[in-house]
């Protein structure tokens, strides 16, 4: 390695320069009509990279995820697990139930590049803010409809979410130990978040196409189908005729592999993907005899079930003789995949993730300090960034209505009186934190009390 490689890269990705760098999606406007996790996360990824994302919610009700809770806990009168799905967005409260509300939403759509929604299929069309109506006012719009089963096919109107998508796609049936009745789902709504990133990726393909041709389009994005795209089991079954049973902690594509327990009760994951890596493992285990054993010397032999079992047993015994401190030492020189099993706390405290920016301690003027996930991929010229945490329902009403829709203070007040636009209910998750003086907030009161003109 060139000696200066890491210092050169530290400069290329210098975290202290992030705010001075460009944003990839500056000038792109996204109308976020979505709720819960799948849709909001897709829009959030775009917001993180500079798109102006306007999230529309029903006044005095809002996105249900605002008030959701784990174990009855809240943080500063908000759901802490709502912030990292809805940061750096603009929050407006418009009720689509009223014709005037629908009109305002379509006016925003007219000025947007992208619309994202994840209601049950067909709902936005029924409401009059779907693709057909949006296309009529903005022919080059990229309109993304996200749902569990998709917008076509016999089950298209079937409601769903993370758990149903994981169950119906095969994900749950392949996770766990063979011959047990426990089938595990992937926690933390993986079936919403991962498809959310996938949806953002498809939107980016559409945006690149539009940049080249000027043409928008309609995207039918199914979360169950995205999960299915990620399983090799279908191809395996169709090519071999066999089913792949659950394999517990072993990855059947690499051998040895597994999650093991150390002498002092720690857990470590280990995997050997190539013959070269296997050589390194044998050396570290001081078992060079294995490197030349015909059962183990080559990858395809190592993977055969009986051979893989034997190797797994040997590795399990070896790790059982080590302590976590030994594992850490081995990691500095080994050339195979070896890691500790990390948990919520260790991840939140890892210094390297903070230096890297994948875990961020963000300081927000309204909520103060919150530790949250940073970008999933780092970009040297246009790094993603968190600009603000979430805001109360309707917080940006004045700002957006005045700057984008040209409404005056008195027009806004009239709309408020008619409940076409509105704010938060005094519920946790919707309202500002109690210590925060919203009356003095310049963005919330954007443009002052009286009509400017």
């Amino acid at each position, binding site marked *: 390695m060139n000696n200066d490689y890491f210092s050169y890269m530290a400069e290329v990705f210098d975290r202290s320069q992030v705010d001075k760098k460009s944003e990839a999606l500056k000038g792109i406007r996204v109308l976020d009509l979505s709720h819960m996790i799948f849709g909001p996360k897709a829009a959030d990824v775009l917001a993180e990279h500079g798109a102006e994302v306007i999230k529309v919610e029903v006044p005095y009700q809002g996105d249900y995820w605002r008030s959701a809770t784990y174990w009855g806990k809240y943080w500063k009168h908000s759901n802490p697990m709502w912030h990292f799905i809805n940061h750096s967005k603009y929050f407006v409260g418009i009720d689509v139930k009223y014709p005037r509300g629908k009109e305002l939403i379509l006016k925003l759509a007219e000025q947007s590049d992208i619309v994202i929604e994840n209601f049950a299929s067909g709902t936005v069309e029924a409401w009059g803010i779907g693709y057909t109506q949006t296309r009529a006012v903005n022919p080059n719009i990229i309109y993304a409809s996200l749902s569990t089963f998709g917008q076509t096919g016999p089950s298209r*109107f079937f409601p*769903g979410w993370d758990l149903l998508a994981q169950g119906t796609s095969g*994900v749950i049936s392949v996770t766990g130990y063979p011959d047990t009745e426990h089938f*595990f789902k992937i926690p933390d709504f993986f079936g919403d978040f991962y498809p959310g990133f996938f949806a953002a990726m498809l939107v980016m393909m559409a945006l690149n196409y539009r940049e080249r041709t000027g043409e928008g389009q309609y995207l039918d994005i199914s979360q169950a189908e995205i999960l299915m795209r990620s399983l090799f089991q*279908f191809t395996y079954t169709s090519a071999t005729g066999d089913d792949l049973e659950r394999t517990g902690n072993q990855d059947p594509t690499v051998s040895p592999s597994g*999650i093991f327990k150390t002498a002092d009760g720690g857990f470590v*994951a280990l*995997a050997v993907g190539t013959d070269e890596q296997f050589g390194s493992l044998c050396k570290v285990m001081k078992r060079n005899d294995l490197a030349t054993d015909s059962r183990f010397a080559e*990858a395809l032999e190592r993977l055969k079930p009986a051979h893989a079992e034997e190797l797994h047993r040997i590795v399990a015994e070896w790790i059982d003789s080590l302590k976590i401190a030994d594992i850490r030492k081995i990691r500095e020189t080994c050339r195979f995949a070896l890691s500790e099993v990390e948990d919520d706390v260790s991840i939140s405290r890892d210094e390297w993730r903070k230096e890297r920016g994948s875990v961020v301690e963000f300081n927000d003027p309204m909520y103060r300090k919150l530790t949250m996930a940073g970008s999933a991929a780092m970009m040297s010229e246009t790094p993603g960034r968190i600009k603000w945490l979430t805001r109360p329902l309707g917080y940006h009403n004045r700002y957006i209505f005045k700057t984008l829709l040209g409404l005056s203070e008195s027009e806004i007040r009239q709309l408020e009186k008619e409940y076409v636009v509105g704010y938060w209910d005094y519920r946790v998750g919707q309202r500002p934190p109690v210590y925060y003086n919203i009356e003095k907030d310049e963005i919330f009161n954007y443009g002052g009390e009286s009509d400017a003109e």
Partner: protein
Amino acid sequence: MPSKEKVYSRHMQNKGAVKRISEWSSILSDILSPEGKPEALADTVVLDLSYANFTGLIASSLFAEGGAEVIKIEPPEGDPARLMTPYGKTVKGTGIPYIMESRNKHNICLDIHDETDRDRLRALAQKADVLIETFEPGLLDELGIGYRQLKEINPSLVYVAITPYGQYTEHAKKLASIPWSDITSQAESGMAALVGALPDDPEPYNWPTRAGFHAGGYASAVSAVCSALMALFFKRRTGRGQMVDVATADSFSSCVGFPPTIGDIWKKPRPRYGTLDYGLCPYGFFKCKDGYAAIACFRDQDFRAALRILGLWKIEEEWKTLLDRITDDVEKAKTLNREIEQAIASMTFDEIFKKFQAFSIKVARSKWRGGGLPVTTRMLRPREVMEVDHWKARNTFFKVDDHYYGIFQVPVTGKMSKTPLRIKRISARIGEDTEQVFKKYGIK
């Protein structure tokens, strides 16, 4: 809208809505066929140098499905990822996951340790828009073909590096020689710690457990492509390229976001929760007479509806509100779960489904919002998924019929009305396209 379709909404009944939905449905009727349609990334050239790393292979596959010309570059002896396959089973010597991710790619051989081949790579990199590599950090830099050197000959190149810990920080430097694997990606990013049986279950079932597919690999690949496409968009507007750096040890935590925030606020890691859920109860798959059925109750009204249907109304008093059903007390959650389990054990999935569906449709069409929307689905195994009419109607499984590799199915998604993702061919023979690619790009 075909009248026999089951609709779960009262909004779809009125006249204007019916008209709009039928117009929208006619747009959709054309969405499933890619035939004759343009490709989103038809002008994009991607070089894939990934080595023994599925995150890289998946990333370039996604580009290729979007229409990019993807040139997969591997050493003459082949990418070791070819042999990462369940139980060592291959089709003509190539592993099944590798074949599955060889969508629309051109396979060429270059030896990065040979100076002539490095010149060829430089020539290709000059013409490329995106380069994906997964070598140990600094390896290509040392060979004179890393980001630092390639950006000099192609300033608009988007250079994507995928490794466990990324290209900067002391930690990444110290552990640079550790290669990628899916299981360590899952373990280090907080996924494995949350999957597995309850703490008082027997070992090793209560140990951290892996997701039974390459969940870490896919999560990282999708975020890599998402950022690379943003970089490509930025390049279209400014002409400037950049580097995208993916650390796969972040795959789960950066995707779902829960671990860092919960770890910091609660100061205590969550224990493994078996088939229970951290947030809701009941929320999971329960064993019925002929399989496993989902019972998921978000709101009190959903819970009440489920109790009525399952004949469990007698327990309503005790579990009335979401606060009564909070899952911080595992024993309590287990108790409620057992009630549901017992009620369901004697029912077939079809019985449960029919009752839930009839109830939901009636409620969803009513103006009264307090009725709940109990919804269920069956847990399916991969073989069963492939037989579902809905996915057949959506062409979710593409049948490959290759004269060399034979007949098999691969899942595909990305239904875009103008530029749908698609599989044009799947072929993965070592070096099969070297000559043709060299000729196209004038490489000697």
